[in-house]
């Protein structure tokens, strides 16, 4: 058995609305483009809408395997996660886990932590300085610590996804730089760079093709 240098499991977490899911979708597509086989699992047990599982056709077209819970089918109040993580990791180069964006949502990781620790992981914390509850670096770090505590795992990298939805401009993004640098300074974590396209949109912005 060879030793993996890049961890096989990538966990994407962050506050709801930080743009976690959009980042996870972009990450999955970029990994696939780089020639690796990739599975993406929707482990969000809290948020009912705007989820990874809604991008089924996009993933299919691009050869990304989607693992979604019954909850993600979108019609039940109580989520059920039915995931053979070990099997999924054995059968692909990379597995991306899109996890619910608060300490409650991150609890789901506890169940998988033996497998996650066995295979090694990176946990990317997505930050957005325009989102309520994470508008200062201090708040963003506080929420990160809570997510770490409830998941029993440690964040290993940051992604600055600061945006204001439809009102995002270059200036809006540029203004978030000092915030992101402050989070880096406090946590000592590295900032990941990945150009992102906006896939997560409300229905009125979606064209049928």
């Amino acid at each position, binding site marked *: 058995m060879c030793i993996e240098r890049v961890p096989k499991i990538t966990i994407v977490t962050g506050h*709801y*609305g930080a743009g976690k899911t959009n980042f996870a979708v972009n990450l999955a597509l970029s990994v696939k483009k780089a020639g690796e086989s990739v599975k993406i699992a929707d482990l969000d047990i809290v*948020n*009912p*809408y*705007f989820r990874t599982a809604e991008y089924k056709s996009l993933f299919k077209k691009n050869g990304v395997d989607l693992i979604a819970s019954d909850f993600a089918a*979108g*019609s*039940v*109040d109580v989520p059920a996660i039915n995931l053979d993580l070990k099997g999924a990791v054995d059968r692909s180069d990379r597995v991306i886990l899109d996890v619910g964006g608060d300490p409650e949502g991150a609890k789901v990781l506890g169940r998988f932590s033996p497998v996650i620790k066995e295979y090694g992981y990176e946990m990317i914390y997505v930050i*957005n300085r*325009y*989102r*309520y509850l994470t*508008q200062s670096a201090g708040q963003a770090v506080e929420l990160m610590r809570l997510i770490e505590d409830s998941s029993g795992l440690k964040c290993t990298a940051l992604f600055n996804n600061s*945006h*204001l*939805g*439809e*009102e995002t401009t270059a200036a809006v993004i540029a203004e978030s730089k000092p915030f992101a640098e402050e989070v880096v300074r406090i946590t000592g974590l590295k900032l990941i760079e990945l150009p992102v396209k906006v896939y997560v949109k*409300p*229905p*009125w*912005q*979606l*064209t*049928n*093709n």
Partner: protein
Amino acid sequence: MKKTLMKGNEAVAEAAIRAGCKCYFGYPITPQNEVGAYMSAKLHQHGGVFLQAESEIAAINMVYGCAATGTRCMTSSSSPGISLKTEGISYMAGADLPAVILSVQRGGPGLGTIQPSQADYFQTTRALGHGDLHLPVFAPYSVQEMVDVTTKAFDIAEEYRTPVIILADGLLGQMMEPVSFDDEEVIEKPEKTFDWVADGHMGKRKKNIITSLQIESEELEQTITAREKRFEKLKANHTQSESVNCDDADIVIAAYGSASRVVQSAMEMAREEGLKVGTFRPVTISPFPVNAIVKACKNAKKVLVVEMSLGQMVDDVKMALEHKIPVEFYGRQGGFVPGPQEILDVVRRLK
């Protein structure tokens, strides 16, 4: 003004706190749980009380009791939960009690689906409880407008002594948009005093009795007509709507809430093709903006109503236009939100 990215549900809760809401009573149901979660985290910081009741019925009756003391209060729920609250809402209307009730629609009937829907238009505008009553209903279409109508709803509730309903849907509750508030921070306002409240007279004034029970027909009729007079005044002062590109429009598309967002995109696509299409959007669905829709449709050859239901508001549109213009309907059910292209296709067929 500083902008914050918020979910519709969170924004309503924040706006309510800023409007001086001191008590929230509720019972969880998807897709509006962020309201209760936000209130439980924040309301106490502003001297308020969050209470998770044992049921929706308990929650609305707590609102009744709280409102009777003249304290600003609210509850929120989604379709099946709102059905449970209707008895309490009727009693509140009968006792002239002010409060704000947020209804975040999901697909029904029954437990249905947690996906967004507009199937509760009839319930909200026609029969939010038994009896002769008209309640004001706001139907916002964006997270910012959810903030704006929440602020307004608390004032109107007190001014007209009535429960005020905010009718949203799962999409508006869950989606995130930038919002701004009038002030940077929450500004604590002095609580208002009213002469009708039941908050302990301490032997210093005559006692007030809050009840919806009025056995004598003369008395009940007087109360109902006086209440309706207040609603007529509310109609004159607060009926609200928005029309876009209607002056030269051959086709006017009418929609409210989430559906009106899709309609707006479809209208823009139609205009690009050279089709003369305008949009009409009621902000208050009760009172329905009758005069405004008549005006918006004055040059229209056809009117299309789009709803995420089998068609409910379409009846109000037909009544307002007195069948003088053909009114067509397009809807999706079961939690589906129609896409702009889908509506454009319908518009093309109407031509």
